[in-house]
């Protein structure tokens, strides 16, 4: 994994790497905290996959392999920053404080969102590829007008990078010098499409053509992701303008539970990347450098287990919404067709709801 361009602070074996531009500012407790985040997210993700297999979720989009990218980025955020995710940013949602059961409301098909985006400063899940990048830029333009020292951060994938919206977001961010960080998780696949179909050169280069910095970071190295993201956010908050971060990582699992990756990629590739596991890497560091005990790791595992059980319970308890709720929040102000629809539904006896 020798790549001149890649910012890396830890080898896949968990050994420190010298980097002329970035150094880790994290202490052992913080790193252990990141480890805990990653373990919990992975466990919750696995639980969600089983829930889906058992027919309890309509769909699940696994995050396995991308935990370091998401936790490194998520932990670099300041509370007042605002994040704009896709459908796979469970690790970011976790860092923003979104309760896990909220993350699953979309996948249980009981909500088109799932959490209060204003409360957690973490926007709604975005399924139409790339749209959210423009929302982030607009939000960042709002930050500028408020004179606030805050940043917006947009997440997207290697596949989404080919959408016009994402590139318009680059144009605008550069034009207005907006306080926004673009965080592209290049997990090398967009469903069955390899990232080389989107770009033959590393994606972070794209930023340079728009006039702002692009950085490629080892997305399986939580220390590196953290430092790179933190610097980009710090810069954005004080008028330094946008940065594109390409977190070079890998989607270990299927695109979603509906997908069958054996149809389009070979096991050997997955195996190679399993050896670059982001969780094991930081665990190795914790063992060697910080002498963290097995008992501590076990403690995290146990905590994750408990959370997974709680998540399962919460999901099972999410019942089918009253159909009449489909009329809620379609509009903010009264609307005759909404009233008409509600009335019809009640008349038909489909809902026991009231007008």
């Amino acid at each position, binding site marked *: 994994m020798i790549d001149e361009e890649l910012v890396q602070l830890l080898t896949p074996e968990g050994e420190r790497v010298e980097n002329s531009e970035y150094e880790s500012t994290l202490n052992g407790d913080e790193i252990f905290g990141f480890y805990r985040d990653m373990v919990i997210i992975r466990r919750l993700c696995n639980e969600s996959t089983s829930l889906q297999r058992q027919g309890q979720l309509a769909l699940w989009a696994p995050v396995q392999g991308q935990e370091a990218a998401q936790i490194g980025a998520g932990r670099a955020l300041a509370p007042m920053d605002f994040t704009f995710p896709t459908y796979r940013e469970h690790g970011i949602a976790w860092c923003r404080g979104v309760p896990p059961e909220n993350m699953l409301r979309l996948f249980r098909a009981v909500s088109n969102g799932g959490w209060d985006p204003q409360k957690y400063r973490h926007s709604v*899940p975005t399924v139409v590829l790339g*749209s959210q990048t423009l*929302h982030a830029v*607009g939000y960042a333009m709002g*930050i500028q007008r408020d004179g606030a020292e805050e940043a917006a951060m947009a997440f997207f994938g290697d596949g989404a990078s080919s959408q016009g*919206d994402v590139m318009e977001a680059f144009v605008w961010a550069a034009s207005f010098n907006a306080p926004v960080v673009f965080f592209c998780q290049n997990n090398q696949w967009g469903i069955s499409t390899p990232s080389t179909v989107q770009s033959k050169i590393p994606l972070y280069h794209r930023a340079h053509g728009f006039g702002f910095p692009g950085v490629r970071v080892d997305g399986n190295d939580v220390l590196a992701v953290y430092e790179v993201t933190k610097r980009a956010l710090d810069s954005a908050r004080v008028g330094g303008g946008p940065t594109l971060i390409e977190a070079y990582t890998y989607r270990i699992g299927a695109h979603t539970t509906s997908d069958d990756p054996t149809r389009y990629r070979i096991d050997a590739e997955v195996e190679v990347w399993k050896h670059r596991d982001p969780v094991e890497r930081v665990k190795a560091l914790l063992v060697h450098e910080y002498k963290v005990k097995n008992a501590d790791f076990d403690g995290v595992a146990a905590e994750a287990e408990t959370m997974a059980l709680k998540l399962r319970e919460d999901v099972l308890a999410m019942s089918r919404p009253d159909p009449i709720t489909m009329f809620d*929040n379609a509009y903010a102000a009264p609307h005759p067709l909404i009233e008409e629809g509600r009335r019809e539904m009640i008349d038909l006896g489909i809902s026991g709801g009231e007008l």
Partner: protein
Amino acid sequence: MTTTMTMAKALNEGLRRAMEKDPKVLLMGEDIGRLGGVFRITDGLQKDFGEDRVVDTPLSESAIVGTAVGLAIRGYRAVCEIQFDGFVYPAFDQIVSQVAKMHKRSDGAYKMAMVIRIPFQGGIGAIEHHSESPEPYFAQTAGLRVVSCSTPNDAYWMIQQSIEHDDPIIFCEPKCRYWEKGEVDLESPPSGLFDAVVRREGTDVTLIAYGASVKTALRAAETAAVEGTSIEVIDTRSIAPLDIGLMAKSLEKTGRVVVVQESPHTASIGSEIVSELTQRCFYSLKAPGIRVSGYHVPYPPTRIEEDYRPSVDRILDAVDRVMGFES
């Protein structure tokens, strides 16, 4: 207090007043700053409110609307100018999948308060893409509201009402009427934003129109009056939702309805009005409702646009058909 001004000026004044009232209101669009917009609707506003509130944007409509979404999340109220109707389609995805659905997706946490201003319809002898009627697309889309002004007074008030409204509004401006003058009442709005109004009373036929077609409808009504047919002209003002109640009341009186629109008739506002009215006023109907529409062709070269757009003659022909239906 009333004063006379063009629709363009009325919109300009309406925007100014909205910006004075609420510091969260900002304007975004192509060439709206120093140039004042290609139609000068935003003339002078950048000078008075600054570049942060009257934003000359890069040339990307999807981004104009997409960033307005982000601004709405942050509590701003963006008024986006789309330079011409035919250039709104690059923003269609943001409008239909984001603007229209984010309030719902956020379970009410986000308000998508924004206005998307579109100079629409034809009649100015322009080249292709400058004369279209995209309102049926937006009316079909749940989560949006669509309105259109036909007089300077409505322009002045409806733009302000739209900006104050908490749902996203597609604001259709009949560009060929920008330079026509009318009385503007600076003190109180003529009616609610979603109310239709009777522009001329009549007893034989209900003639429904919006935007530029309202004036054509009124002209047709005048001509018809000379020939002895009494036409009631209704300006829908709101295109979605439709104020069907008012239209039904009129139809119950007249028993005949003609709808005028510049868009082709398939799955149009006219189709909607005719379907709804047929359902509500079936027993009052003396003839089936007729739509007078643009033809089902790409907007033609404008040397022949007046034969594409519903003309007084075509409206009167439709009136004759509903009047003569029994025979």
